[in-house]
């Protein structure tokens, strides 16, 4: 799409099928990561401390220029920088397959399942799907400038939500002591009511409109200023309110519509007068609305539905962006189609919108088995929708039945598992990772840092790398591949 870099970060859950005290989700996560880097040699492990919670060996960059690492005990995959929706969808699914293939090669398929969702029903834990959009530094990053984005994000869940059974406990019941975040005590815990089903996984966990932290006090717009690029030219819009999508179509539409709305804001063309009276409350009310009327109150005291608000954004995007490139036109056409269908029977969205697919499956099961929403099976089926095992997962069952439109192909996903997009700096980083893998033996590639205090053999970050004995190599422009420069730089290096 027009002058945009996209990226997705996904934290995965691990469902353990056997009760063994020595086999925790984190134990499996370590095994899978080690298999990817040490056996399959998909990339190079970090040899330096990336932060207080990322010691050497915690994760590393891949040949596709993305990253796999452990974050708060979760396996996490960050896609490489992508300029097209096609690339970011393929790159995101490449992460799913890298992890699932490693799990299968390890022979763990019957013991553990990789779950691409954002909640557990039992402890109210949540973990993220983070979206990244590179914008110009001139982007109006103020409350006033971001107001249209907040309105758009609160309402886009009607087609981006992945749906869930039930709801989370009120987040203000959580307690912070020093660095520990404690759940409400079992005695003090109270769910106002256990919802049968809501359209978003993350809505219950968003408690601010703007905030910079990512682990608690999560906000509709994360305000951390970390562009991972030249800070004089760029800003990275980092969003953590979205759900992990199983449907490729939903991923493409989520990133595509959000990218276009950011463009409207950058160009001063976003619809005006749509500020929501209480955006955080509206986010949860839309998600939990059992009648799916999705009505919210604006600051003007006017009530509008989420569909109507989305249509206002769509109208502006059609007026200002139509025809600028092929992907933009795809987004505009399918944004319109989805909004049209959201006015009717939700079953029309099955295959394209995750919450609709999940709800339809659950309703089919309820009808056939005569169970109600409080049956524990319903939460278990909710999880199974997100199982990455093609032979078991319910999303993959729909896919197998031809119910799900694709926006990429298995061949492109296979390529994206190994190679980077050729039109961003990911291409240059990929060359570096291949060079290090080629030059270093399997046993040396993950050596711990030398105890003599020497600089480790290499340090790789998103916007810079350094190979021992040579000057740092900055990559401040994500739109450049740096390929020739990286090759020239590496030609003179002896690792």
């Amino acid at each position, binding site marked *: 799409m027009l002058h945009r870099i996209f990226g997705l970060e996904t934290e995965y859950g691990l469902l353990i099928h056997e009760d063994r005290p020595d086999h925790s989700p984190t134990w499996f996560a370590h095994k899978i990561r080690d298999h990817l880097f040490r056996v399959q040699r998909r990339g190079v492990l970090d040899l330096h401390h990336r932060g207080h919670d990322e010691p050497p060996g915690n994760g590393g960059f891949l040949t596709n220029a993305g990253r796999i690492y452990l974050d708060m005990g979760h396996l996490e995959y960050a896609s490489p920088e992508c300029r097209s929706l096609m690339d970011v969808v393929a790159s995101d699914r490449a992460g799913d397959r890298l992890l699932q293939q490693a799990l299968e090669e390890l022979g763990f398929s019957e013991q553990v399942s990789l779950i691409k969702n954002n909640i557990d029903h039992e402890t109210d834990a949540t973990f993220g799907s983070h979206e990244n959009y590179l914008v110009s530094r001139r982007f109006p990053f103020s409350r006033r400038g971001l107001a249209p984005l907040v309105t758009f994000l609160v309402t886009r869940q009607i087609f981006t939500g992945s749906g869930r059974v039930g709801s989370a406990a009120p987040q203000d019941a959580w307690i912070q002591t020093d660095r520990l975040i404690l759940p409400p005590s079992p005695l003090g815990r109270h769910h106002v009511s256990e919802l049968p089903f809501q359209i978003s996984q993350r809505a219950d966990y968003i408690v601010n409109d703007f905030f910079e932290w990512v682990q608690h006090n999560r906000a509709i717009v994360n305000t951390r200023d970390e562009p991972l690029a030249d800070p004089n030219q760029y800003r990275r819009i980092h969003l953590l309110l979205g759900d992990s999508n199983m449907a490729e179509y939903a991923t493409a539409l989520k990133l595509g519509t959000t990218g276009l709305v950011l463009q409207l804001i950058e160009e001063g063309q976003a619809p005006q007068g749509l500020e929501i009276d209480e955006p955080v409350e509206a986010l949860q009310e839309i998600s939990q609305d059992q009648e799916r009327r999705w009505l919210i109150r604006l600051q003007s005291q006017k009530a509008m539905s989420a569909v109507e608000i989305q249509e206002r954004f769509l109208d502006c995007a059609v007026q200002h962006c139509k025809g600028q490139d092929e992907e933009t036109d795809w987004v505009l056409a399918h944004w319109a189609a989805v909004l049209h269908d959201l006015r009717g029977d939700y*079953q*029309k969205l*099955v295959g394209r919108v995750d919450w609709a697919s999940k709800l339809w499956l659950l309703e089919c099961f309820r009808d056939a088995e005569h169970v109600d929403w409080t049956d524990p099976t319903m939460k278990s089926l909710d999880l199974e929708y997100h199982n990455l095992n093609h032979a078991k997962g319910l999303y993959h069952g729909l896919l197998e039945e031809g119910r799900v439109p694709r926006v990429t192909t298995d061949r492109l996903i296979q390529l994206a598992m190994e190679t980077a997009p050729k039109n961003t700096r990911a291409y240059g980083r990929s060359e570096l990772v291949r060079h290090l893998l080629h030059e270093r033996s399997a046993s040396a590639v993950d050596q711990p840092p030398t105890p003599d205090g020497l600089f480790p053999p290499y340090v790789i970050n998103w916007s810079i790398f350094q190979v021992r004995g040579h000057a740092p190599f900055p990559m401040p422009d994500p739109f450049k591949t740096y390929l020739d420069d990286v090759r020239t730089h590496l030609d003179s290096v002896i690792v």
Partner: protein
Amino acid sequence: MKHSMMPERREGPVDPMPKSPRPLEEGGGPRRPESGSPDKDNLMKRMRKVDPKQAERYRQRTGE
């Protein structure tokens, strides 16, 4: 240095994103399958295999 061969990867929508996925052309997604149709049988088979207690065992750490 010998540069490793990087397989070709298409940069963008050379093969354009589908202009109109089939469910759209047909006026939307699936209707609730009729009893006995193969798709319902297969999907129900998957759902019946799910351990009804697995959600109780799915205990994750809070992430970001």
